[in-house]
């Protein structure tokens, strides 16, 4: 434990709070079932490595950029083929023939793109320092880019999926986040894949900088993390202020009316599909920024560390337990659940140690592998918390305040 440990957990809690607010916009305001949070977090993390990691001169000096440019051209060409096939009804190709032509066009576009990208990827991985490297910009710009990139992807995902209802939407978004994970994990030329990127620069002074100024190690850790925490809290406060204002205003009222009865809302002239896409993108921006903050805090981007349990379900539990539809609820839930998630491991270790001591004395022998087992207990505790919460506080600990507007 100790202060350095607590301070870094606080920073992570702030980032998770941002992500939980993003989900609260999507689910609490808009009733959208996004189970692809992990994908947006990964996108944000990859974005921050791309922006803030130092420039890789080996790559820019090689043929890599040109080959990537050709792959980009091939991608554009493929997109043109697909678009052309979709317009084929203009020259009299309709019905099944058009469908077949569209499928064929997708296939050709895919082959065209792969034929250019595969050699480029192999080349970059072999010579250009292994991957494209970053741009060397300030990490906060990376956070912004994480939000922008997540927004772009959310727009595409929303366009594809938002026609679906509840359970179908959940499963489709999980599927898409798994696709994103597979891509980021295996596109070594772009994200370095499982080789991981580190160290990613910090937006605020690092402990080493304080130590150079003559501070002791513990003090420098705390000072550095306090700086980061202040920055994270500023972002969080700004977001909280903005979304609370949006919630209280006409926009929030419209969103809640769409959530509660989208048929009635659309008969009142609200464009339900466009509004839902809007809210999906807004929420995903917060997830992208939160994911970027987490990555730049730990200074390492490791695609293998992303798991649906830690990065999708945990956040859902935060919002459900805290109170969906209430920003303070989501914020409270995020901090509370992050606390539970963090302490459940040492706590279960203590319980195991106690039981082990007792069972050894009773002659039944000690519990083997206590360390590994208590690490697994976190998942169990998470499941327990969510089932208990749904049973006894289905609206959350700080439920949504339902106001009747006259």
């Amino acid at each position, binding site marked *: 434990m100790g202060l350095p440990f607590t301070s870094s957990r606080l920073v992570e809690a702030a980032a998770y709070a941002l992500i939980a607010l993003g989900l609260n916009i999507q689910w609490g305001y808009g009733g959208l079932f996004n189970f692809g949070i992990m994908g947006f977090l990964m996108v944000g993390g990859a974005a921050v490595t791309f922006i803030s990691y130092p420039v890789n001169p080996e790559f820019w000096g090689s043929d890599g950029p040109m080959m990537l440019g050709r792959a980009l051209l091939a991608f554009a060409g493929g997109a043109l083929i697909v678009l052309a096939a979709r317009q084929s009804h203009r020259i009299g190709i309709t019905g099944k023939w058009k469908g077949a032509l569209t499928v064929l066009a997708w296939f050709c576009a895919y082959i065209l793109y792969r034929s250019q990208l595969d050699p480029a990827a192999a080349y970059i991985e072999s010579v250009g320092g292994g991957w494209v490297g970053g741009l060397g910009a300030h990490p906060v710009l990376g956070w912004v880019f994480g939000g922008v990139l997540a927004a772009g992807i959310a727009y595409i995902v929303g366009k594809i*999926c938002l026609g679906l209802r509840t359970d179908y939407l959940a*499963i489709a978004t999980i599927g898409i986040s798994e696709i994103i994970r*597979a891509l980021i*994990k295996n596109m070594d030329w772009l994200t370095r894949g499982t080789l991981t990127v580190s160290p990613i620069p910090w937006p605020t002074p690092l402990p080493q900088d304080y130590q150079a100024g003559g501070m002791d190690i513990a003090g420098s850790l705390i000072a550095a993390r306090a700086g980061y925490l202040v920055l994270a809290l500023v972002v969080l406060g700004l977001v909280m202020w903005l979304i609370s204002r949006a919630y209280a205003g006409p926009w929030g009222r419209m969103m809640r009316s769409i959530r509660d009865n989208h048929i009635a809302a659309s008969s009142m002239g609200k464009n339900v599909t466009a509004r839902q896409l809007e809210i999906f993108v807004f929420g995903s921006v917060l997830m992208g920024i939160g994911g970027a903050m987490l990555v730049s805090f730990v200074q390492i981007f490791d695609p293998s560390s992303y798991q649906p349990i830690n990065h999708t379900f945990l956040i859902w539990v935060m919002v459900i337990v805290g109170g969906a539809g209430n920003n303070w609820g989501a914020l409270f839930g995020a901090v509370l659940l992050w606390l539970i998630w963090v302490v459940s491991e040492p706590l279960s270790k203590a319980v195991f140690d106690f039981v082990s001591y007792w069972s050894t004395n009773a002659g039944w022998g000690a519990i083997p592998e206590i360390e590994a087992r208590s690490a697994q207990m976190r998942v*169990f505790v998470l*499941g327990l918390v*969510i089932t208990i919460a749904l049973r006894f506080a289905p609206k959350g600990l700080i439920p949504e305040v339902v106001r009747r507007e006259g």
Partner: protein
Amino acid sequence: MTEIIFFINQVVISGLVLGCIYALGAIGITLIFGILRFAHFAHSELMTGGAFIAFLLASAFAAWGIVTPIPTGFVVLPIAMVLAAVLALGIDKGFYAPLRKRGAKPVTLLIASIGVTLMIQGLIRLFFGAGSYSFFENEAKEIFRIDTSAIGSTRPLVITEPQVLMILVTLVSVIALHFFLTRSRLGKAMRAMADNADLAQVSGINTALVVRVTWVIAGALACMAGTMLALDVTLKPDLAFNIILPIFAAAIVGGLGQAYGAIAGGLLIGFAETLAVFNWTMLFRPLNAVLPDWLQLPPQLALVPTEYKLTVAFVILVVTLLVRPTGIFKGAST
């Protein structure tokens, strides 16, 4: 001929095996969705849990010195299925029934099922650690190598004993399920309730019983699928959690609520995955002798790299949802 035998080994057999496992899992998901109207995420943990029950029973058999001609995993399967069905009933009673009674939305039940998933996974890891286990520690996995030199192949046709049994067992259970759903009173009641729950209730169908039967069938089939997957590969705590999404994809592609759709979807996804990562050069290699120099086949000619195997299922899922939002067989929705 060697190439064709290679194709059969690599695609037909492994696609069929994978498809059978997906289909068995998807039937349970689709039945639960049809009757109870929610996507049951914890199905993966029913599969893993069932596999661990079977593993414990098999270990017990080995400890008692019982030796069987077929792999012990298959011998203990019926007992494990009964236990898994009881487990499924207990989960419903403990976690879903109180929520249903309160009239919770399907979405709440879905989230509750994620909570159950996490709890069971935590418990399995608590007792068994994170390592992997094999059913074949005490006995050898028999591998049949059928000599095909008679038809001019230099490679044998390779299939393992569990794979043969797995395909047979799946076939038998699917036929049994078919007769249950179409001939028995209870099966007809299930189909009626899947069609229209309110109508089924007013026409005097015992809906509580139907719900229980659904859990029993789903739990038993999940146990079967999990055990067979563990017999084919190895048993580990995230055995089924890794494939729950392809299984959902299979259920949705077939149409949620449609038992036959689940079978079709399972086989479709299983074959699509193996076909997508298959290296087609292995099949068309003889053509290299005929083709001109500039048209020689590259050494690797797969549709997607092997790392993206699981992605195939999601792409099929997303495309299906776009083109036919309720699946091939027109499934139900919440």
